[in-house]
């Protein structure tokens, strides 16, 4: 017969070994996660802190260039009309490109989702532009849309699409929507395939038209995908740099500030004016904007999302 003391002793031994096991698991967990966490900490979190730090100083190539601590860099950014133009441009760009690529992507996904022949071929064709690099795509598009290029030749235009301030913004929007639509398509495709067939069958039994089926049933069911795309591609759009940099051959924002974006103002402050404090302040403001936008998206579109 087991005496109570013996049981308790056995239990306490079990408890310590359990705690020991827990500790060991935690140790291994930390060990495994250590290098990834260190890399992310060192190259994302630490730079964030460092940027916040130097944004309060006059900071140049060799460190502090003038004494004084304060929010003068932030004030300079807020009072800079060029930064205002940059914000306007990136807002216009984001609010144009994200809905466009989501619509395109969803449409393409709907096409592929049907039982059409050559599905794989079409899926490859539609995804193809997404796999090319920003440099390759930009140089190709610049060639085709040059003033005497293929596009103008085929459709009888004579506009310098990527040379005019009035058309260059839309040119970049179209180009990036085109190249990103393939990736968006894949996400929507997976989401569409996750919708069970009975939903459609129920709609067919009720004799619902295809259009209504889509709007009243499919579209709302895609909410998780909508939210995901909004966040991921929204953030991606806000970070715009490569394509306008290649088009304007630098971060000048030419012509007429039509390609001036926040990423450029930061780049110019750093490598044009060598004012690292100013560049850091602009970067911090930019980060706060992105963070805020993500929170807003989470609270509105993502509210239905279970964490």
């Amino acid at each position, binding site marked *: 017969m087991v005496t109570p003391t013996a049981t308790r002793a056995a239990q306490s031994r079990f408890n310590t070994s359990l705690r020991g096991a827990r500790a060991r698991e935690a140790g291994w967990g930390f060990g495994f996660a250590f290098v990834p966490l260190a890399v992310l900490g060192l190259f994302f979190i630490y730079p964030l802190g460092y940027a916040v730090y130097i944004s309060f100083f006059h900071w140049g190539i060799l460190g502090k260039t003038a004494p004084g601590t304060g929010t003068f860099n932030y004030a300079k950014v807020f009072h800079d009309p060029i930064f205002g133009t940059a914000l306007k441009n990136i807002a216009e760009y984001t609010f144009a490109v994200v809905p466009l690529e989501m619509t395109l992507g969803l449409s393409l996904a709907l096409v592929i989702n049907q039982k059409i022949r050559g599905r794989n071929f079409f899926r490859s064709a539609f995804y193809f532009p997404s796999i090319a690099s920003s440099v390759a795509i930009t140089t190709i598009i610049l060639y085709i849309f040059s003033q005497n290029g293929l596009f103008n030749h085929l459709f009888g235009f004579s506009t310098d699409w990527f040379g005019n301030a009035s058309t260059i913004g839309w040119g970049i929007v179209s180009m990036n929507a085109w190249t990103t639509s393939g990736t968006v398509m894949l996400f929507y495709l997976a989401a569409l395939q996750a919708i069970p067939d009975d939903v459609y069958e129920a709609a067919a039994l009720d004799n619902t038209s295809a259009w209504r089926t889509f709007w009243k049933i499919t579209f709302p069911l895609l909410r998780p995908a909508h939210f995901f795309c909004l966040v991921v591609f929204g953030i991606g759009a806000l970070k715009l740099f490569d394509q306008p940099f290649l088009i304007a051959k630098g971060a000048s924002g030419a012509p*007429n500030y039509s390609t001036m974006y926040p990423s450029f103002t930061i780049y110019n402050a750093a490598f*044009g004016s060598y004012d690292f404090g100013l560049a850091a302040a602009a970067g911090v403001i930019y980060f706060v904007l992105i963070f805020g936008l993500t929170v807003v998206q989470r609270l509105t579109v993502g509210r239905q999302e279970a964490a």
Partner: protein
Amino acid sequence: MTKRLVVILGLFVTAVALLAASAAQAGHRSVKVTNVTFAGWSSGPDEDALDTQMANAFNRTVGAKEGVHVTWQVINGDYGQAMTARFAAHNAPDVFYVDSSVIGSWIKQGVIQPLNGYVTKSHFDTKAFYPKLLGAFEKGKTIYGFPKDWSPLATETNNALLAQAGVKAPRTWAQLKSDAQAIQQKTSAKHPICLSADWARMGAFMYQNGGSITNNLTSSANAQAVNFYVGLIKSGLAYTPPAGSWCGQELGQGHAAIIFEGNWLLPYMKSTYPNTHYGVAPMVHNKKQGNLAFTVSWSIAKNDKNKAAAWKVLSWLVGKQGEKIWMSKGLALSPRKDVPSIGGRKPFLAAAPYAHGWGFGNPNFASAYTVMGNDLNAVIAGSKTTQQMLADVGKALKGK
């Protein structure tokens, strides 16, 4: 006994011989060789080869005598960014190019070494340089670099189109306008003049009207010049080059009859459009003569560890021998009065007395230049007035 003596003598002689030999060696070794790097960007294989040639010439002559060995290092990509990183890491090349448009901000950042001390110590002759060129690299009386070459703007014209219209290369603003009108009427060139939407061209016109970029930017003289320049475009007598092209290419392809470019046009036309015959005339003028000098200096880093040796290299590079080699390919013009430029450059050299160094030593020039370009595009498109642009640029130059 004799054997022991011989051994001791032998050892003694060997020791003395060894000592003597090492002393002689030490004597040679006492001439230490300092390694100096000089660096810059490269506009092409010609420039690269020329710099290497200068390095070899220096090493053979002054370098061998003074114990300085110099190597040329080309820096590709964004020169400013590459140099920024090197300054920050305290391992910048000893001697390097500095464009006149950035010298102001680099001086302000404290990365350029003032040279007056070295000039006086080595009795370097600064008077041989064109004063305005040297002035582009001075702040007050302090010299921060010596110009290695320069180029102003000139008027280049397409011979065929001008002959067809029966006009000669314009010398004044009035002639520019009348010549363009004649070409427009009598030839197929609908917009005879190619004008870049760039203050690095329009600036010359501002000085030609008696205005100035460093002094009273919003003056009526400047506004008139801008309105003249923009007016040519708006009236159709001139056009801005399309994306991906520049006025040099437009001239080469026969689209433009009159353009304003610098010495860099000549090697370009020779290699890319050898069949287009063009003429070079001095830059047009109005109330005054006015031009811009695009010039690059040799400078030394403030944190450099071999400043004395670097100075030896720098003074040779911009001295008579170095500049003679540099001028041999005609890549740019000679900054020294006593070293001739390659042939056929008279229209450019004429501008030396009134060519203002591009950048004007202004430390805020990079950001001001962004404003200049964008605002000028706005004025041409009609969404900004000339006064607004001048005010904006004025503020940007002051660092606001």
